[in-house]
């Protein structure tokens, strides 16, 4: 984020505005954090404390049984493995495909570019809808395979446009020099453009990563239950159609703590990487006004 819009030197003290600001900001912070704290507290509390409604923002009857239960659950690890596969694999495929399409499209003089661009933009406004997409994926024999998740979402039009804009903004002299040195377009893309575009690639890569990590709906309709990622497992645990451990009957009192533990463990990687890459994320927002 850029530095403060108002420099300190010329501020008047205005108690009303300052109080209002402090109030709203404090409220926002509290609201943002409370749900996480609540789940955190639940996950470390004893079943009895939760049942008797003693827990609020701090663990009561501290214990790690919920985490031990989750970590001892083989399906949880399998689901986690698929989540990792989708997040890393999907991001990799997406970056390759998006770069390959964005580079030629960044050449404004390329014949046919306009047609392709129009095609891209139109598909942002209008799409096939749920059923034609499902029938296509199943017609290609992708359902029940991990490719049903990895391939259909490989190019996001928003990120493509961000990347095209970024490529266009690179100084053309560098490419010209490289051409003189005898590099062809493949070489230029691979050795010059992509290395220079690390910031943009990081940004769209991170967004794609988060998309795949949080994705549950498409795995639900395309995959076998043995391939479900962790978010879908969580959804099934919360709606009561899957258990969070082996043999639920033994752990009924613990079930809320276990759900909380699953919530935290499944979000942990994203929550951990996000602060380190905050700048890259924000760049994406200001570059392309991306939401969701």
């Amino acid at each position, binding site marked *: 984020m850029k530095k403060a819009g108002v420099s300190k030197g010329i501020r008047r003290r205005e108690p009303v505005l300052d109080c209002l600001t402090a109030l709203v900001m404090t409220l926002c912070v509290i609201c943002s954090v409370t749900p996480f704290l609540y789940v955190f507290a639940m996950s470390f509390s004893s079943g009895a404390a939760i049942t008797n409604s003693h827990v609020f923002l701090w663990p009561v009857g501290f214990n790690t049984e919920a985490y031990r239960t989750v970590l001892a659950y083989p399906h949880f*690890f399998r689901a986690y493995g698929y989540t990792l596969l989708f997040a890393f694999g999907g991001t990799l495929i997406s970056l390759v495909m998006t770069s390959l399409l964005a580079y030629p499209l960044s050449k404004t003089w390329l014949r046919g570019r306009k047609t392709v661009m129009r095609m891209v933009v139109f598909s942002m406004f209008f799409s096939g809808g749920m059923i034609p997409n499902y029938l296509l994926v199943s017609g290609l024999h992708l359902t029940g*395979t991990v490719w049903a998740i990895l391939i259909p979402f490989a190019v996001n039009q928003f990120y493509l446009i961000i990347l095209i804009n970024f490529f266009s903004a690179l100084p053309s002299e560098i490419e010209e020099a490289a051409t003189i040195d005898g590099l062809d377009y493949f070489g230029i893309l691979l050795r010059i453009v992509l290395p220079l575009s690390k910031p943009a690639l990081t940004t769209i890569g991170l967004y794609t990563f988060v998309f795949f990590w949080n994705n549950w709906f498409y795995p639900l309709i395309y995959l076998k*239950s043995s391939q479900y990622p962790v978010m879908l497992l969580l959804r099934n645990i919360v709606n009561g159609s899957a258990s969070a451990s082996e043999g639920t009957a033994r752990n009924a009192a613990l079930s809320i703590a276990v759900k909380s533990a699953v919530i935290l463990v499944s979000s942990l990687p994203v929550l951990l990487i996000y602060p380190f890459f905050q700048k890259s994320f924000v760049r994406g927002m200001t570059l392309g006004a991306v939401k969701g």
Partner: protein
Amino acid sequence: MKRTLSLLLTLALLFVICGAAHAEGGAPLKISIYYNDNPTYPFRDDWLALTYIEETYNVDLEIEPVPFSDYGTKVNNVLTSQGDDTPDVIFSQKTSGGIASLALNGAIYAISDNPDWTPNFNARVAEFGLEEELETCRMSDGRLYYMPAMYDIPVYDGGLILRQDYLEAKGFEAPGNFDDLYAILKAYKEDYPDSYPLTTIYDVGFLERMTMPSWGLSLGTYNSTSSQVLSWDYENRAYFAGAISRQYRDYITFLHRLYAEGLLDPEMTQDDASTTLKLATGASMAVYAFYDQIGGWEQASEIEGFRLALYPPLTGPSGAHHMPKARLMNGIIFPVKTTQREDFEQVVRKIDEILFSEDAYMVWSLGLEGKTYTMDGDQVVFSDDILNAPEGITKYMQNAYGCGCGGTQCVFRSALEMFKNKSDFAAVNTEVAAMDQAMQYVPAAPAFDDLTAEDTTLLQGALGDAYAVWNDAFIRGTRDIDADWDTYVQEMKDKGMDEYLALFNQFSRYQ
């Protein structure tokens, strides 16, 4: 960065490979199966019953446990697309509703085409005398598309469950009718004002399914006529518009009264764990549920003397009835894609053998003789770990050994099933068996043709949704039963109630 990335990727792949690892072998017949996974006994591929069957019958069962909330959807979609992910066999299905239309369009193999491939199934049907009932499972083209699971005698396996210790402490007799139940709930509410004496499991429809028959009704998602809004008139053997009937108005008035007086738990959609918590902590003392849950609930409670018991159906305006029970239930279907397997006949024969043969169903029901049980004359004696399991024999056997699981157990001999429960279960069942029609028959689904099936589906969607909304509003009192009743009836008629009823009666198998 690059190195960590590739490392992570390899790791992810390893995870997946390890997770999917299966014992590979050339000889055993490989069969992939869709299995309706029940969260109260989550599927495990090391269940004794399963591994024993695989070894003994030289078969490799690749079971895909599908969470029950998505089961119907998943089955429909694989049957419709018949893609590479279509399993060879689908468990726990029958050919009603949308599956009927799929069967008529050739998406499902017709079992009746090769009756000599299923000798064990045929033998059980003959043994239990189910020929007539099996006829009603045929589709309008006269063919049978599934092998239903079967009971020799329907078992009363669930119903009203109450805190027996409370009843005894307060000197209550076992309730005989719904006024008795009301009095018990009321007393509990007075003793514990913060409680909601009667709670639900899964959703309120579950409770309705088990209580409505005493009002002569069966409505909602899993009603006995698979129509959501129609009910079966047992006297005249015809459908009637149950959802807008006088009986329903009386029934919903009763339920609303329970709700309004704080006797019915307002959290009407909840999972097993939530219900467990409420019963175990005394926040509730009554529930309509299956008997096999009792053990787990008793185990979860720390209340001194906590004891639950199953009671026979209560008498209502139309007598004392539990939900209608068929002796034939959901069973086995083969997607038509499986017929492309060269060894298809072998697959059918193998499935018939491992589910319906005498030796195999004993394993699915009781486990291994000598390990989980021994025979003492005609008495089954379970091993000590099973007998002493705090959650009850049934639940423990399901979780620990994979015995008695819906889906894999397809033959139920009630005399054997009784051993799996404490003596009170047999006692209740004897009592229920002595009652007059406590469990009525399930009327056979109408034999719609393909186009009519499409029409009824459309009507059913609109009617079922509207009924669900109104039903809820009536219970909660957000709509007044007396003031808004006419509006409700009119709305249902506008949505095609009369037309829907006429179609069902026109295609009824009981002409």
